[in-house]
C-alpha cells in the first residue's frame, strides 16, 4: 500500500470534475452548500469580497472553525494557506483537510518561494494566470490548477483571460517541433519536462479548474466551455440575494454547461447576483492575482 502518490492526489480532483467547490465560513453555510450539491467546500474565515473590503493581513483560518465545518458535512473540506507559508500548510495537514489551497486570496508569506508541495501527503491546488505559472506550481507538486481570476469581484473577466491564456498556450506548444521546446521552456521559465509533456499531450497533467469572479450559472458555463473541468465559487454565492437557490443553480450549470435551453431554465428567478467590482475600481496594489508568480 502506498499513500503519498501523485495519482491519489489528482484522483480526488478527478472525482470533483463537473462540480462546484464553494467558499463557506460557517457550518450553516457548509450545509447549504452540501444540500445544493457542492462537491466540496472551502473553509475560510472571510470570503474574498470581505477580505478585500476589510484590508489587513489575511491568514489561514482558526482550526476550530475548520473542524466545525468538517463535522457538519460529508463532502471533502478544503482550506487555504498563505503563499509560501508551509507551516500553515502543515497545520492544515494535521487537521486532515482534504485539499490545501495555497492561495493568493490570503496575504503572501514568502515573496520568493512557493511551498514545496511534494513534501505533503495532502494534495494542493494552486492558482495560475498563464501556462508557465501553472507548470511551475505542478513542478512544485500541485495536483490541481485553477485560474486565479480576480477573487471577490464577481467579475468573470480575469478568469476568462487566464483560462483562454492557458488553453491557447497549450495548443501553441503542441504545434512546436521537438528542437524548439528547450528555448520555449527557457523563455517561459517553466520546467522542461512539463513543457515537453504538454507539447505531446496538449493538456495539463493535472485537472484544470476555474476560480475568481464566477457569480452566475452562465459564468460557470462560460469558463467550462473555455476548458475548465470544475469551478470554485467564492463570494458569488453567499454575497447574492438568495444563496441556497443560487448555489443549486450553479451546481446544475456545472453539469449542463453546454445546454443553453437548460441554462435558460436554471438562470430564471434567482434574485440579484452579487454587486461586483469593475477592474478599474481596483488599485494595482489590491490585485490579488498578482500575488505569487
Amino acid at each position, binding site marked *: 500500500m*502506498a*499513500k503519498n502518490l501523485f*495519482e491519489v492526489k489528482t484522483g480526488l480532483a478527478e*472525482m470533483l*470534475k463537473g462540480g462546484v467547490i464553494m467558499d463557506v465560513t460557517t457550518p450553516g453555510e457548509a450545509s447549504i452548500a452540501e444540500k445544493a450539491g457542492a462537491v466540496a467546500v472551502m473553509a475560510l474565515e472571510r470570503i474574498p469580497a470581505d477580505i478585500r473590503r476589510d484590508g489587513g493581513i489575511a491568514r489561514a483560518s482558526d482550526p476550530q472553525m475548520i473542524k466545525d465545518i468538517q463535522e457538519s458535512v460529508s463532502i*471533502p473540506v478544503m482550506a487555504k494557506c498563505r503563499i509560501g507559508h508551509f507551516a500553515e500548510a502543515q497545520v492544515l495537514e494535521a487537521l486532515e483537510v482534504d485539499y490545501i489551497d495555497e492561495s493568493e486570496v490570503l496575504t503572501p508569506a514568502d515573496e520568493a518561494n512557493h511551498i514545496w508541495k511534494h513534501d505533503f501527503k495532502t494534495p494542493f491546488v494552486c492558482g495560475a494566470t498563464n501556462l508557465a505559472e501553472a507548470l511551475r506550481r505542478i513542478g512544485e507538486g500541485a495536483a490541481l490548477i485553477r485560474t486565479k481570476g480576480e477573487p471577490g469581484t464577481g467579475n468573470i473577466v480575469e478568469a476568462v483571460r487566464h483560462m483562454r491564456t492557458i488553453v491557447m498556450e497549450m495548443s501553441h506548444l503542441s504545434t512546436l517541433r521537438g528542437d524548439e521546446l528547450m528555448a520555449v521552456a527557457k523563455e517561459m521559465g517553466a520546467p522542461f519536462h512539463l513543457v515537453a509533456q504538454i507539447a505531446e499531450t496538449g493538456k495539463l497533467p493535472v485537472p484544470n479548474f476555474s476560480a475568481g469572479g464566477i457569480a452566475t450559472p452562465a459564468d460557470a458555463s462560460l469558463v467550462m466551455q473555455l476548458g475548465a473541468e470544475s469551478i470554485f465559487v467564492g463570494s458569488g454565492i453567499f454575497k447574492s440575494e438568495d444563496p441556497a437557490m443560487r448555489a443549486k443553480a450553479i451546481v446544475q450549470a456545472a453539469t449542463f454547461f453546454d445546454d443553453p435551453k437548460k441554462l435558460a431554465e436554471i438562470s430564471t428567478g434567482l434574485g440579484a447576483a452579487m454587486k461586483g467590482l469593475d477592474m478599474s475600481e481596483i488599485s494595482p496594489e489590491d490585485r490579488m492575482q498578482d500575488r505569487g508568480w
Partner: protein
Amino acid sequence: MIGVVALQGSFAKHAHSLGSIGVTCRAVRSEADLKSIDGLVLPGGESTTMTTLLQNEGLWEPLNATLETMPVFGTCAGAILLGQQVDDDRVKCFDKIQYKAVRNAYGRQIESFTTSLILPKLNYHDFHAVFIRAPKFENIQQGVDSLAVYGPEHVLLRQDHVLAASFHPELTDDATIHKYFVDEIVLKYR
C-alpha cells in the same frame, strides 16, 4: 452502447476506459439518454452531489426502473448509490445489490491509497487499484459474489447484473475490470 451517467465525477475516465476496449459510450444526463443502451456505468464522484442532481433532474425514478434489469457497473460513489443501505441519510440508494455502504470508511483524503489486487475469478493478478476516500461494504448478503479482497474488506462485488467497486478502475489504463463487465455481464444479460 454503454450509457455513462454524466452528472458529475469521473464519467469521462470511464468513457476512456470503455473506449480503450472498443466499446462506444453515451453520456446520460436525461431520461431520453437511457433509450437503447445495453449497460450503464455509475461513476465515482460525490454521492451527495449525485443524489441531489439525480433527484432534481427527475432522473432518479427512470434510472431506478432501468436498473432492475440493466447491467450496471458502479465505482466508489456509484457503488454507494447501488447498495441496499448507506450510513448517511444525505445519500439515497437504489437497492440493487445487497450490502450496506459506509462512506469514507478508510478516513479522509490523507488516508487515500493505492494497492495491488488479485482478481482470482478474473484469473488476473496485480490490478493496480486506486482508493480515494473510499467506502467499505458491510452486511454483505448471500448471493453477492466477492471478486476481490483488500485485507478483511471485500472491494469488488457482483450480484447478478450489478458490479460494484469501492475503488476506481477508471483511473488507470488497465481496462481488465471494464472488460469483465462488458464480456461477462453486459453481453450475457442483454
